[in-house]
């Protein structure tokens, strides 16, 4: 009996603490468009989850708080927890349920079939599973990666660049591949060392990966996913200047002296289209991709970091070339 009592106490304490994690942000209105989103990390991670949160705020501002409301559950790195939230939201009748993370694909496939009248979206991937009620979205992050890589190749003094990736999949892999291609495009003799640490969340291992890059002469670093704050911390703590290129969200605030530029995702580009389709009765079946052309991807420079005007002009030409399709952003072996 006493053990049962203790278990109940522990569970109750945890529940009290954990409930605020399930943050909700709602707006009151008559018949607003209702969206629910599950994300793997915090909405202020300056990376993947923040890019979606910022997009939702943008859409809310565009449509008005009376016409658009959203709830989210962030920090949901356990896929089973995400599955519970997704099913619950489907039962509650949300207009669009988003699983923001490629790790959620299997649960979206499992749940969406049970709720054919509810629209689901997930990414980053292009697979809608052949369902009429599933949208898929991805980012052509190789494009911004290419631009970042080109810039890095121009700014390095050692001729060595270091890349810290999470798991070799999705937009993270595209970004890394694009960065390598861009660096080689900018300087064919450049050395680009790439390290996938096998985790989206192991900040300490990302920090040590960055240390390894620096020990092997890298003076410009980049990386994708929320664990990169560890790598940025290492860059800040070096005696010699180590520059940083960001992706997913604007990472300037992490290290204003070291961040040169960030590729920023604007998911609002695909969200607005999805909402329009759903309101017209199409619940899914479409795949989207953020690109430089549709302005779902933008390159944002750190205003405090001085970049040569000539180099900025080169970047503009580069972006035009990528949009026109004249410059391939992946190397042949990566694009196969």
């Amino acid at each position, binding site marked *: 009996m006493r053990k049962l009592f203790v278990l109940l106490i*522990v569970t109750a304490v945890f529940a009290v603490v954990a409930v605020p994690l399930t943050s909700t942000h709602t707006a009151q209105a008559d018949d607003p468009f209702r969206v629910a989103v599950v994300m793997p990390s915090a909405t202020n991670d300056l990376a993947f989850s923040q890019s979606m949160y910022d997009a939702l705020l943008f859409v809310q501002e565009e449509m008005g708080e009376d016409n658009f409301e959203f709830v989210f559950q962030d920090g949901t790195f356990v896929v089973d927890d995400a599955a519970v939230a997704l099913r619950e939201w489907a039962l509650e009748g949300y207009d669009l349920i988003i699983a923001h993370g490629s790790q959620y694909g299997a649960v979206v496939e499992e749940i969406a079939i049970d709720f054919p009248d509810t629209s689901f979206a997930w990414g980053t991937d292009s697979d809608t599973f052949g369902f009429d009620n599933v949208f898929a979205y991805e980012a052509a992050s190789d494009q911004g990666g290419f631009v970042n890589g080109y810039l890095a190749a121009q700014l390095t003094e050692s001729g060595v660049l270091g890349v810290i990736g999470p798991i070799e999949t999705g937009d993270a892999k595209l970004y890394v591949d694009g960065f390598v291609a861009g660096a080689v495009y900018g300087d064919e003799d450049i*050395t680009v060392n790439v390290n996938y640490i096998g985790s989206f969340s192991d900040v*300490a291992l990302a920090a040590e990966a960055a240390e*390894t890059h620096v020990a092997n002469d890298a003076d410009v670093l980049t990386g994708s996913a929320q664990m990169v704050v*560890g790598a940025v*911390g290492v860059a800040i703590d070096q005696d010699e200047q180590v520059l940083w290129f960001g992706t997913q969200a604007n990472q300037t605030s992490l290290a204003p002296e070291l961040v040169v530029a960030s590729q920023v995702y604007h998911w609002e580009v695909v969200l607005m289209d999805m909402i329009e389709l759903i309101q017209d009765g199409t619940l899914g079946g479409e795949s989207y991709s953020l690109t430089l052309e549709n302005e779902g991807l933008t390159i944002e420079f750190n205003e405090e970091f001085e970049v040569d005007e000539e180099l900025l002009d080169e970047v503009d030409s580069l972006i035009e070339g990528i949009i026109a399709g004249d410059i391939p952003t992946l190397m042949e072996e990566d694009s196969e």
Partner: protein
Amino acid sequence: MLSDILTASVIASAIRLATPYIFAGMGETFGQRSGVLNLGVDGIMLLGAFAAYYAVLETGSLLFGVMAALATGMLMGLVMAFVSVTLQAEQGISGIGLYLFGLGLSDMLYQRLVGTPVHVDGFPRVDIPVLTDLPVLGEIFFNHNFLVYVAFASVPLSAFVLTRTTFGLKIRAVGQNPEAADAMGVNVARIRYFTVIIGGAFSGIAGASLSIALVNFFQGNLTAGKGFIAVALVYFGAWRPYWVMAGTLLFSTVDALQLQIKTLENALNLDIPNELAVMAPYVVTLVALIFASKGVEKPTALTKPFERGE
């Protein structure tokens, strides 16, 4: 090729990577030697990491950071001791509860008090006159932050306390045969309270070694399960501090090596699947555990609550 892979910086990296595991492992060794399994180590590490980070962020004082981590760890240790010793709850379950509590609370406090990632000036590398400038050895052993040295110093200290002091003898007696220890006048509950609180303090510092020394940021789930690995390393080390350290160094060395190999993969014309590389530390440690565990006896009373007169 070997000279490209096994460099001084890689060994130094292994030493840095080992630091949080050594702190947490030493703390857990004290608890388990007295018969208390604390699976909440990772949660305590997270709270210690946040407490240290927030204290440094607010005050700029590393001393306050360490004190905050220690105090938080001890408080969480007290909670674990109360639940597992006084209330005699099942230790595995209550440890998991403590972990979830630490995971949730640390993230909630971070979101409410800090929000977006902010860098803090953590422990810098200690420049030891003459020694730091030594070729090779200087980079390997004498180019680390203060907490790295504290972690490694805690190993002989823990071994000494456990094997050469009356307190250590009581800890071992309580973990091996609490009834006999009780009959000899040892206060079993008090000893277990002490060890679990000591373990909590170690875990708190383990978290601080991440947030104000290695990474100098905080993020939700910063530890990424390192506390659980530390618990496994205590088993690997057969509840002996030096062996726990050896297991930790084996794990962290393979981790540092796989980072180096992947980094130089193109230069060395290697093609190793990433999945295989990141698995390597776990596989090597698991294989070593199989051999190391032969003939080793764990503390007999481990996970067993004690009640006088049983």
